[in-house]
């Protein structure tokens, strides 16, 4: 009997410890709790299903002026890309070609990603200066230039997770590697191996190596 009481006491004690530590189960007691306001200021990511999309809206017609003023200098008036800055428009049907053009229209699988990226890092060097509405307008403009939505379609936090992108099904999961020839017990050929040893190209002949390394 005494044993049972003692056992129950131990159970109660351990329960109370675990309950109290569940409320504040911090092993080291380092750091401070974040307030909702603090989290809201930094938690800007937007997921494909629209989770995280901030309230706001805009269409392509209104996006044009913002694009011309804040994007076209690098990306070109028609999203064609100036110099080596990224091309944003076009590239349909090129992904399986010798020269694939991976644009927001031809390659990006989710509209949410465009919103997330533009809001967090664009314009280049002026990150997070666009308003939410401006960002919706710009994304609508890009989607319209890529013929994914009409120019008067109002993109918003309510529907950005429902936009179907042309290449949404173009990605393969999971990673199939290791995908190359497997050798038994990691023992590849060591002698008289049947491999091509003819030189078919030299970097020297291509001549794109920066000057101080040309010999």
């Amino acid at each position: 009997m005494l044993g049972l009481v003692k056992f129950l006491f131990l159970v109660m004690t351990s329960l109370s410890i675990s309950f109290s530590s569940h409320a504040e189960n911090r092993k080291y007691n380092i750091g401070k709790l974040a307030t909702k306001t603090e989290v809201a200021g930094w938690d800007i990511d937007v997921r494909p299903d629209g989770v995280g999309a901030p309230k706001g809206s805009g269409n392509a017609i209104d996006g044009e002026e913002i694009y011309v003023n804040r994007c076209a200098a690098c990306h070109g008036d028609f999203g064609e890309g100036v110099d080596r800055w990224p091309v944003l428009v076009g590239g349909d049907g090129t992904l399986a070609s010798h020269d694939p053009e991976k644009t927001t229209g031809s390659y990006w699988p989710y509209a949410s990603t465009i919103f997330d990226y533009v809001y967090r890092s664009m314009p280049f060097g002026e990150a997070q200066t666009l308003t939410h509405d401006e960002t919706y307008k710009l994304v609508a403009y890009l989607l319209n230039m890529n013929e994914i939505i009409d120019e008067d379609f109002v993109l918003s936090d309510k529907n950005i997770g429902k936009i179907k992108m042309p290449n949404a099904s173009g990605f393969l999961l999971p990673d199939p590697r290791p995908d190359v020839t497997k050798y038994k017990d990691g023992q590849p050929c060591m002698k008289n191996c049947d491999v091509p040893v003819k030189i078919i190209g030299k970097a020297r002949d291509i001549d794109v190596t920066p000057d101080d390394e040309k010999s």
Partner: protein
Amino acid sequence: MTDKKKLISRRSLFSTGAGLGALALTTKSLLAKEANKKNLPPNVPEWTEALGEGVDANPYGMPSEFESHVVRRNVEWLTASTESSVNFTPLQDLEGIVTPNGLCFERHHGGTTIINPTDYRLMINGLVDREMIFTLDDLKRFPQVNKFYFLECAANGGMEWRGAQLNGCQYTFGMVHNVQYTGVKLSDLLQETGLKNSAKWILAEGSDSSGMTRSIPIEKIKDDCIVAWAMNGEALRPEQGYPVRLVVPGWEGNMWVKWLRRLEFGDKPYMTREETSKYTDLLSDGNARMFTWVMDAKSVITSPCPEKPIIHRGFQQISGLAWSGRGKIKRVDVSLDGGKNWKTAQLHPPVLDKSLTRFTIPFEWGGEELLLQSRAIDESNYVQPTIQELQKIRGVNSIYHNNSIATWLITKSGKVDNVRLG
């Protein structure tokens, strides 16, 4: 010379004893610079006659002025601006396995961010029991780990998919570095925040102007990820994420978010720009592989190489580096004849998990043409492939994850060229 003779003579080159006497007679400097005879025996060198600098001349020591060529280099035509660009580690000038902090390649998407550590905060939010904020001092109070890991950009060697393009070890392999990180295991930070059962992914976010973001599965986070504040014994360099970066051992460098400001736990991946439009591997059929995180086994001969021609005939070392995101390097083989015949190199301890590993093999050079290759095998028995093996499965548009065997052509003059065999 017949093929048979070539084979025999090349194989014998690996034998350190055979032919050394005969070759010694012909050993001479081919491309070495001429010394100033005033400084050579029996003369007293000029530096012996004068005092050197005092201890207060260099509060933070720099390499010798004669090593000024050992620098990171970029390829200007690769990118539109240097703020969103990459430079390359001069692997050809380094020894051992530690990359000096100032030579670790840089890859930024919005330039090097400067953060006053007093103003640094790490936020952990999302599917945790308690959303929390940590200062740098907070992070340093946690249990500490010190681990060597390589960091390789998934695009290392990306310019070489279609052929030998850049004539240098630095430009073709230099998007890798290896340092010792000091930090706190991310799993220890979770002791403070708690973790909800529904948490399956983490979003790591940088506070640079690109707001770099990547999704990482929870299994990796719990396994070995580190929130690091030091490299090689000192604070992280600004260009490596000062004051805090994420360390994701064995996985592509883009995930090692620098200037780390936030870790958000969620139940799905976030599909950021970096893991959809970039760092996905386009195949020849137009589909692309996504979430290819592990860096497969790879190796490179760092000397000789295009930047390090052979300057003496006779006995010398072939030296190189090998690494694998799947664990330790088990073996490295070296070929002098383009992969027909191989000999196993010596690995130099320490041979660490997911770390650069130094290998060397002695050889004798008699002035003939050679086709140098190295081939890494890791502890999972993965064998570094040829470019043909990769192309057969992935085509030539992948950009990322080219871990194929490179070929250095040693010409009769001792100059070295990056070449493609086929």
